[in-house]
């Protein structure tokens, strides 16, 4: 062991080890991607790849936002409304005095602020996250409806074309976000979020600022969610006060599919991202297979259950041998 102790060894080894248990999911996702490429070779072109990743991108972001909280032992039901609010703010501020930068800043600050407030309520008042965020979701929806009572607003075309045109900008952004996440996870606070999720008492006794970690988790989650809303606004060229609703459940499904546990500290972001990719690519594959709606529903259910159950069954079958 000491023989391989070059400076990056430990970090790399830890990172590799965290793929454990995800092999099954990786295989399933890879199989779907290959199937998709066979059905639609256009995915391998720049344009096709760009479009596909654009459609996946917002789900990937909100899945990260959800997984981040679940790793910390929390959960949020306010994802959908916050995506909507992010889109609404983007679409209502970009024609204002400060233009696009002002709009982006406004969205980011809103996400951070809402996350921080929810986090502070959960951490300091010791209220269950699930119901605080449920209440929060109504309030956020209300604000979005007041700002923009019906779909509309304005996003400059160049922004839409940059973020969601025929170039893989969304994918690159995702890579950047993932790198930032990796960097964050390599900070004491980042690991603290993990530790506080798994064993809050122990983490506290080890000197981790447990409450600050929780608030940070909510704040970052809010930021990611609001930015997903910004992207949706750019992708669609407008704001819509209710467009985000389905993201709430989908973000939870993707995270759990990716092996993130409910109780905190269990799971990995890479798994969660894979979960969201599976949910996204599944839609396209089912389309190209020509499934009618009934089959779409049934297949979707089967794929979701199968992606979790098959690796699990294989594991216990192997253990039994």
């Amino acid at each position: 062991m000491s023989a391989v102790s070059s400076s990056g060894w430990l970090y790399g080894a830890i990172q590799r080890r965290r793929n454990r248990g995800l092999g099954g999911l990786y295989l399933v996702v890879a199989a779907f991607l290959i199937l998709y490429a066979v059905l639609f070779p256009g995915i391998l072109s720049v344009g096709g790849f760009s479009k596909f990743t654009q459609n996946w991108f917002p789900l990937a972001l909100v899945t990260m936002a959800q997984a981040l909280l679940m790793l910390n032992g929390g959960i949020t039901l306010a994802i959908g409304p916050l995506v909507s609010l992010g889109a609404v703010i983007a679409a209502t501020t970009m024609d204002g005095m400060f233009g696009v930068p002002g709009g982006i800043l406004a969205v980011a600050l809103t996400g951070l602020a809402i996350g921080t407030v929810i986090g502070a309520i959960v951490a300091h008042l010791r209220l269950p996250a699930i119901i605080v965020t449920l209440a929060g979701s109504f309030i956020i929806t209300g604000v979005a409806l007041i700002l923009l009572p019906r779909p509309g607003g304005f996003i400059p075309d160049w922004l839409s074309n940059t973020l969601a045109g025929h170039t893989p900008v969304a994918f690159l952004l995702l890579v950047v976000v993932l790198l930032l996440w990796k960097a964050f996870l390599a900070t004491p606070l980042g690991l603290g979020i993990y530790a506080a999720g798994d064993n809050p008492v122990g983490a506290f006794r080890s000197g981790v600022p447990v409450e600050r970690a929780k608030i940070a988790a909510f704040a970052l989650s809010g930021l990611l969610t609001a930015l997903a809303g910004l992207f949706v606004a750019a992708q669609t060229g407008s704001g819509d006060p209710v467009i985000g609703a389905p993201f709430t459940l989908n973000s939870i499904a993707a995270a759990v599919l990716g092996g993130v546990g409910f109780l905190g500290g269990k799971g990995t972001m890479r798994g969660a991202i894979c979960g969201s990719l599976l949910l996204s690519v599944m839609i396209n594959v089912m389309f190209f297979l020509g499934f009618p709606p009934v089959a779409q529903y049934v297949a979707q259910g089967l794929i979701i259950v199968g992606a979790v159950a098959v690796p699990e069954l294989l594991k216990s079958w192997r253990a039994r041998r």
Partner: protein
Amino acid sequence: MNAVKTIFRNPPLLTFVLVALVWLVASFTLRGFGAYGHLRYLLELAAVIGIAAAGQTLVILMGGIDLSVGAVITVTAILLPLISPAWDPTGLVGIALALSIATGIGVLNGAGAAYLRVPPIIMTLAMATFLQGLLVIVAGGSAVTVSNPAVILLGQSRPLGVPSGVLLWLAVSAVVLILIHRMPIGARFLAIGANPLAARLSGVSLPRNTLILYALSGFFAGLAGILVLGMNRQGYVGIGDPYLLTSIAAVVLGGTSILGGRGTYAGTIPGAILLVTTTALITVVNASPGWRSIMFGTLILALLLVSGREARR
């Protein structure tokens, strides 16, 4: 002073007191809110949530969750008229069939969670998706108006002035409370919810209890579906949707931990009433939809501040 302390230590009781306070304040400030008929109607609405949340409470106590509640309600409400045999004048056969289907769905959920080791949240979500597929097939069938006399009786009659739905809820409450507090299985659910590993090593069978619980959850959701059908005289696709989140919210508002192992149905009962009361309160306020949504969220949060403190870890 001591009485106040007892109330604050007892989440279900506290939630009941909150409900009473909200009713009182609303009755004095809003014309018509406190009318007997209105309160009775609110109870009737709460009955649906309460019955759906009965299964949800049990499942959450055991550390799981059931996201198929809404879909099961819809499926029951849509299927019941279709499967009620014409030769049965009482309609009970149809009810029994519908409940068996709902219970069967629950058993499938439980089997997935217990044997395939699929996290309940995923299993029940996938089940809800399956059921949507089923609805694509059966919905729009031509006989969705219910003619089943037992169902209509359940939804419309008021023996001694009390809606049958509320009576049904009382019965369900009694059964669930007995199950949790007076039967061995209730203690096992709680133990599994708090520490599945220790429970298993203490001889509590996880698969068996999981199956039983999700079956019960399916059953109660089915019962709620039948009641909704009776109250609306017609099922339609989406009729169960509102009950997914409300059933969970009622459980959590009642002081039950979403992580399992701690709580009681006695808290869910006032939790359900609190939810419908809040909704009704917001409905009669004349404001734009945005402001109404904000008021609803704020009210829930405010009530939570009083009732929902999580115990120290």
